[in-house]
């Protein structure tokens, strides 16, 4: 039980001039769940990628059992028994579950010069692995038709199809519902019993006491310390992550009576039905709900990204027709999407170019564009939003998640919107950046902006919003003042079936 199966000693990694990982340590025992926590840019993912062979380390040693290993590819790592399940799945949507599990090592038999894939055997083996996970997924099912939770299980099954000693899980519960999370924990406990060591990366500190045995904290590329979970309550973890103690600030409501936007009778198929609400000047309206409640779909329809069946928008009392994001932008609405990498940014382009994308109209001169203004604006936002980067010419993919998110925010602030829609603005980013974004939301509201914020984290909705609208299965089930709200009340509304 206490046998060490994986050890990293003094591991360092540089990217160009930045030290992404500085003398990291990790000791993983068999049959333990070892949580890695740290703000974005703390070095967790770099360490993981070195262990799985996706990156090579500049300094330090990694031992599997008592043998030092030098893995050069994820393929080699997998052969040694180290597998990783990332947030972004590596599954191929058009293939079956069984084929995905055995991809790259399909069981074949040679008949003279002709080889034949043994589909029946593959199916049977896949079924056995899925049974072990107590899953009812059929091996012949097409992966594209599965839910996120099921896909994650298939990923785990894929890892288990090798003789596995170390399993790395990167934010396995980030996109799961409460029910699925419970199942996931069961699966993880099953794996522990088989003696597999699990490295568990998560931002959800509340779940760690339930699932983790030990916890290692990283900050700014440095290893801070390892603790038994019993001696690491949330407060202690956060202190170690942040380095200085945090002060919680209460939100001062600065909402006015002036109606900025009115949404009337918004409906779109089964996604959401008959949604009405008001947004006031200086108000932060939170939208709460469980996964699949239709929150993102609703704001996408408001912003003109997706078609709607019916619905009217009034801005300053005037009916406004919005058919496209371009229309919405003209109407003074900004939209910070859920997926900053795919939708928010162009990762291979410099920061100032990303900023310029929304304000090309404003940069226009009689001939050409005012590119100096673009750079100047970006530099102003780097200052005011405290974006950590080399300069405004750095490419977006080199930034950490929290800083990328700030760039997305900057690019919409540059349009000087009256209404700002933020979909999960703090998802997957570190606590430091989170607090900065909360402060920013406060400031913007004080300046009179109307803000709609979707968040799956109930404490966050309660902390940040003036008023909270709750959606459940596409219906509006409640509208609450933040003074009277608790997490229990919100959850109650979020699980109701009756619209208000």
């Amino acid at each position: 039980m206490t046998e060490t199966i994986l050890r990293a000693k003094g591991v360092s990694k540089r990217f160009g001039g930045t030290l992404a990982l500085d003398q990291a340590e990790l000791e993983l025992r068999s049959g333990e769940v070892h949580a890695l926590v740290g703000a974005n840019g703390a070095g967790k993912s770099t360490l993981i990628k070195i262990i799985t062979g996706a990156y090579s380390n500049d300094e330090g040693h990694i031992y599997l059992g008592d043998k030092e290993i030098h893995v050069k590819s994820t393929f080699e790592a997998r052969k040694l028994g180290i597998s990783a399940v990332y947030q972004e799945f590596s599954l191929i949507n058009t293939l079956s579950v069984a084929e995905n599990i055995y991809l790259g090592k399909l069981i074949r038999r040679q008949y003279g010069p002709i080889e034949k894939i043994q589909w029946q055997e593959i199916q049977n083996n896949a079924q056995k692995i899925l049974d072990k996970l107590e899953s009812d997924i059929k091996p012949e099912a097409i992966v594209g038709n599965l839910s996120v939770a099921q896909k994650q299980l298939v990923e785990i099954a894929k890892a288990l199809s090798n003789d596995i000693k170390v399993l790395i899980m990167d934010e396995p519960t980030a996109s799961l519902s409460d029910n699925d999370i419970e199942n996931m924990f069961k699966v993880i406990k099953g794996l522990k019993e088989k003696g597999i060591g699990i490295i568990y990366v998560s931002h959800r500190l509340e779940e760690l006491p339930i699932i983790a045995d030990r916890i290692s904290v990283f900050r700014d590329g440095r290893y801070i310390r390892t603790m038994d979970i019993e001696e690491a309550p949330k407060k202690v973890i956060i202190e170690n992550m942040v380095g200085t103690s945090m002060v919680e600030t209460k939100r001062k409501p600065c909402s006015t009576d002036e109606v900025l936007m009115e949404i009337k009778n918004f409906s779109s198929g089964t996604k959401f039905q008959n949604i009405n609400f008001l947004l006031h000047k200086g108000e932060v309206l939170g939208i709460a709900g469980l996964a699949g409640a239709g929150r993102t779909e609703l704001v996408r329809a408001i912003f003109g990204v997706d078609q709607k069946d019916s619905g009217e928008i009034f801005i300053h009392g005037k009916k406004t027709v919005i058919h496209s994001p371009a229309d919405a932008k003209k109407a003074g609405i900004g939209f910070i999407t859920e997926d900053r990498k795919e939708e928010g940014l162009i990762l291979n382009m410099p920061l100032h170019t990303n900023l310029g994308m929304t304000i090309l109209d404003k940069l226009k001169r009689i001939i050409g564009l005012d590119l100096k203004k673009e750079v100047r604006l970006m530099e102003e936002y780097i200052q005011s939003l405290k974006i950590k980067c080399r300069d405004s010419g750095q490419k977006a993919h080199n930034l950490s998640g929290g800083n990328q998110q700030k760039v997305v925010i900057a690019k919409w602030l540059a349009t000087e919107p009256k209404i700002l829609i933020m979909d999960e603005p703090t998802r997957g980013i570190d606590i430091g950046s989170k607090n900065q974004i909360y402060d920013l939301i406060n400031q913007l509201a004080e300046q009179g902006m109307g803000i709609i914020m979707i968040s799956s984290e109930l404490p966050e909705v309660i902390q940040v919003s003036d008023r909270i609208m709750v959606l459940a299965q596409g219906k509006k089930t409640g509208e609450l003042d933040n003074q009277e709200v608790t997490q229990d009340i919100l959850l109650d509304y979020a699980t109701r079936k009756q619209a208000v």
Partner: protein
Amino acid sequence: MKNIKIKDFVMKYIMYIVLVFMVITLTVANDKFLTLNNVMTILKQISIQSIVAIGMTMIIISGNIDLSVGSIVAFCSVIGAMLMASGVPVWIAIILVVLIGAVIGFISGGVTAKLKLHSFLVTLALMQAFRGLAQTITGGYPKAGLPDAFGGIAAKSVAGVPFLVLYMIVFYAVFVYIMKYTAFGRSIYAIGSNEESARLSGINVERVKTMVFVISSALCGVAAILLTSKVRSGDPTCANGWEMDAIAGAIIGGTNMAGGEGKLGGTVIGLLFVGILANGMVLLGVNAYMQSVIKGLVIFLAVIINSIQKRAHN
């Protein structure tokens, strides 16, 4: 440290280094190569295609492809020749031909953008259709009988520099500017890199995509005028395979086939590369079939070098 710098430098400018190397070799091998006359011949040779390649580069950067450019040039050339032969004033014919090009681009781009079809398929169909149309309306024979004044457009030169070369320089100057310093140009790069992100930023993706095709096909109209003037007839079989030459020029010049990256300056280098190679082989008396093999191999190598370059860069 110094070694790394040299390596980086070589990696970054390898295409230019190979180009210079090729020029030096040819200069040594043949005394006719580096003469003003021959240099102008090479530039003249690539000038008309290079105008088509502007549009192609923009289309590839926007994440699309256009296989129909050669056919559009032929179709526009034939129409222009017929208009002028039937007595329509030269300048009106020119405007009409460019407009017809633009309309064709509006069709291919509009269909591609609006119906979200793959431009490969749309333009593959148009490639067949317009080549066929050009042959149908002429009965397969070149259309001659053009006014003498029209020939001057391509044939004249000023201070030893052919007009064709000047047109090329002017068009490239204008479009390099458009790609770098206008909202339209920036939108093309954004759409090619990440269409969804561009759309959510309030860029009118459909319009930009369509406009890129309109411009590209209008430039085919311009190329058709120049080509018609150069050969003094509207030939339905002309500009055969130009789509491939334009694509090759763009790719050798570093444009990313997947969209989002590329420079018009690179495309000129790419075309020069192929042009100088072809010219050199003729001067050295390489057999025509072998020329094609060598050209193919060089393009192949260039593409490999480019991909290595990109990987090193990332």
